[in-house]
C-alpha cells in the first residue's frame, strides 16, 4: 500500500467535567469524559473510511480532533507525513485548506446572515484563491457542482430546504479543493428521499474529485454505500475494522453484530441476531476490562479483567474481542 494520507496513532481526548471548590472540599475526584480513549487507524489516499457508532462513542470528537477543532490530549495525527498536533495555530492555514468538513446540521452550520455567495466568496477571499473576478465564477461553478443554480447565490440559508443547505455546506467544503473531506453525520438531519440525493452527490463528487473521506455516521446502511473500510467505535475505542463488504458479510465483534441486527431493514434479514439489552455506560465511568462486557452475551471471566486489543484475525480485518478469535478458530462462523 502506498504512503497513507492520514495516520492517527493512540489518539486520546478527555474532557474534564466541572470540578468546583465544593467538589474539592468534599474530596471528590475530578471526573473526565473519556470521549476518545486511544484510537489508531490509517487511511490511504482516495479511500473512504466509515466511522460508525452510537451517540457518545467518540466518533465526532475523533473527527474534530483531526480537524484541530479540539486539541487532543495525546497521540499523533499524521497528515501527509506531518504530525498536525505539533503544528501551531498560525501555521495551520495551509492544512486547513487541505482538510475540510461537512457538518451534521444544515441549519446551524451556515451563518444565517450571509448570502450563500457571500459565504463561499469569503472562503476564497481568506485563502486568496483566484482574482476577485475569478472568484465570482468559481462560486457559480461550485453551486452548479453541488446541484444548485448559480442564481441561488443571492439567497440566504433560511430560504433553502435542509437538503439544499447541506449542498451549500458541501460547496463550502469543496471551495478549497481539499484532499481529505471529513463528513460528520451529513445525512442524519435530512429526510429519506433527500438523504438519498445527498448520498448520491457525495458518491459522484468523490469519484470526480478523487477525494479521501472519513464518513462519520450512526447509520450502518448509509455507511455501506460510501465506505471502502468501516471502523466501528464503542465508548471511545475502535472495536472492529474491516473492508466494508467483509464487515457486513462476516462481522466478528458482538457489538457490530448487535448493531447490524438492530437496523430496521426493509426486506428480510436472515443474519445472526444479537439483541442486546441495556444501554451504553457513560464515558465517565468506563467499565473495567472489555468496555462492552456489561452488555455482551459472550462475555467470559477474562473479559471482566482484561481489555482486548485490536488484533488482525482475518486478512485486513481487525477485532478487539477475546472471544471472537476463539469462536472463529472453532469454526463457528458468526454468519
Amino acid at each position: 500500500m502506498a504512503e497513507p494520507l492520514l495516520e492517527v496513532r493512540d489518539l486520546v481526548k478527555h474532557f474534564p467535567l466541572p470540578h468546583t471548590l465544593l467538589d474539592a472540599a468534599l474530596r471528590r475526584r475530578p471526573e473526565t469524559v473519556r470521549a476518545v480513549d486511544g484510537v489508531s487507524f490509517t487511511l490511504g489516499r482516495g479511500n473512504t473510511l466509515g466511522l460508525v457508532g452510537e451517540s457518545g462513542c467518540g466518533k465526532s470528537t475523533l473527527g474534530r480532533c483531526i480537524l484541530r477543532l479540539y486539541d487532543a490530549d495525546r497521540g499523533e495525527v499524521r497528515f501527509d507525513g506531518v504530525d498536525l498536533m505539533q503544528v501551531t495555530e498560525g501555521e495551520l492555514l495551509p492544512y486547513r485548506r487541505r482538510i475540510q468538513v461537512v457538518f451534521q446540521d444544515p441549519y446551524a452550520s451556515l451563518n444565517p446572515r450571509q448570502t450563500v455567495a457571500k459565504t463561499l466568496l469569503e472562503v476564497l477571499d481568506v485563502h486568496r484563491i483566484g482574482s476577485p473576478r475569478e472568484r465570482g465564477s468559481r462560486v457559480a461553478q461550485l453551486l452548479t457542482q453541488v446541484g444548485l443554480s448559480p442564481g441561488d447565490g443571492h439567497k440566504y440559508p433560511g430560504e433553502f430546504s435542509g437538503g439544499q443547505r447541506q449542498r451549500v455546506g458541501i460547496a463550502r467544503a469543496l471551495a478549497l479543493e481539499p484532499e481529505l473531506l471529513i463528513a460528520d453525520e451529513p445525512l442524519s438531519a435530512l429526510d429519506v428521499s433527500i438523504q438519498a440525493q445527498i448520498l448520491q452527490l457525495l458518491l459522484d463528487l468523490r469519484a470526480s474529485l478523487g477525494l479521501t473521506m472519513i464518513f462519520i455516521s450512526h447509520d450502518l446502511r448509509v455507511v455501506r454505500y460510501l465506505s471502502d473500510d468501516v471502523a466501528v467505535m464503542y465508548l471511545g475505542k475502535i472495536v472492529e475494522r474491516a473492508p466494508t463488504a467483509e464487515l457486513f458479510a462476516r462481522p466478528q465483534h458482538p457489538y457490530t453484530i448487535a448493531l447490524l441486527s438492530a437496523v430496521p431493514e426493509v426486506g428480510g434479514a436472515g443474519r445472526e441476531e444479537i439483541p442486546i439489552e441495556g444501554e451504553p455506560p457513560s464515558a465517565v465511568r468506563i467499565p473495567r476490562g472489555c468496555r462492552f462486557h456489561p452488555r455482551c452475551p459472550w462475555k467470559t471471566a477474562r473479559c471482566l479483567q482484561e481489555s482486548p486489543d485490536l488484533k488482525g484475525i482475518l486478512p485486513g480485518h481487525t477485532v478487539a474481542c477475546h472471544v471472537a478469535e476463539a469462536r472463529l478458530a472453532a469454526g463457528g462462523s458468526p454468519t
Partner: protein
Amino acid sequence: MSAPLLAVEGLCVEIPTQRGIVQAVRGVSFTVERGETFALVGESGSGKTMTCPAILRLIHPPGRISGGRVTFQGRNLARLPERDLERIRGSGFVMVFQDPMSALNPVLTVEEQIAEALPWGRPYSRRDRALDLLRRVGIPDPERRLRAYPHQLSGGQRQRVMLAIALARQPALLLADEPTTALDVTIQAQILRLIVTLQKEYGMALILVTHDLGVVYHMVDRVAVMYAGQIMELAAKGDLFARPRHPYTIGLIRSVPSIDRRRPLAPIPGSPPDLIGLGPGCPFAPRCAWASDECRTGEIPFVRVGDGHWSRCLKADLLEAEAGG
C-alpha cells in the same frame, strides 16, 4: 363487519402564517381496527405529525381543524364536549411523543407522573401499580427509578417511562409519534420490541407515525404513505412493499439504503412542495417521472387498486408492471 375502533374521514388542518395559510393536512381518511398496528409514513411536511393531534383535537391555535370527522368507538369526537374529550384522551387513546424529555414534567418524579395517570378507585396501592408498570416496560432497578426525575434517566429509559404512563389507563389505542427517532439504533430496537410486546399484552391498537420505512416493515399491519398533507397510498404492509402503486411510494422505497443487497440508490429528484397555495393536480407531479399534463391539472381521485389497497395516482395501473423491479 363491526364498526372500526377509529374512523377518520376527510380530516383537514390549516395553520395561518404570515405568508399565507399552510394546508398541513388535506382530507385524510383512514380507519383503525381493534388491536391493529397502523403506520402513517412520510417525510417532513407530509402532514403525518399533524394528523395525530388533530385526531385528539389537540391542535394549538392559530392552527385549526378546518374539516373532517373523527369517530372513536362509535362516537363523533367533534360533537363531544371538552370534558368527555379529556376523558377519552386519557383512557381511550394516549399519545407517546418523539422527545420524552419535553413530554415529561421535569419537576415531578417518575412515581408521581405515573400515579397521576392512574385511574381512581382501584383496589391496589398506587405505588405498587406504578412499580408494576415500570417492570412491564423493562426499566432496570424499578424501585430506585420510581424516585428519579426525568433528567436522571437516559433517553431510552424516558421513553419507557412515557410508555408506562400511557399504559396506566389501559388505552384501546396508542398513538406514537416517532417514538424512537431520538434514540440510538440498539435502544430503538429495544423500544420497538417493547411496544410490540405491550401492544399484544394489552390488546391495544397502535398508530405509529414515522419516517422510517425499515421500522414500518418490521412493526405494522397496514400503512398510509403521506405526502403534502394527503394520503397517497394505503395498503397492507406486504402489498405496499411488494406491489407499491404510487410513484412516491416507489421512490421512497428506493431511497432507503440497504444493508444486505447493495442495490443502487434511486433518489427522488427535487424537494417537497410549498404547502401554501397548493394548486389543483397531484402535488408529487413536479418530481414524478410518470407525470403527464392531466396529473398537473385535474383532481386526482383516491382509487381502489386491489384488496384493501388504494392509490391517489392516475397512472396506478401503469405502475403495476414497474413495481416488480
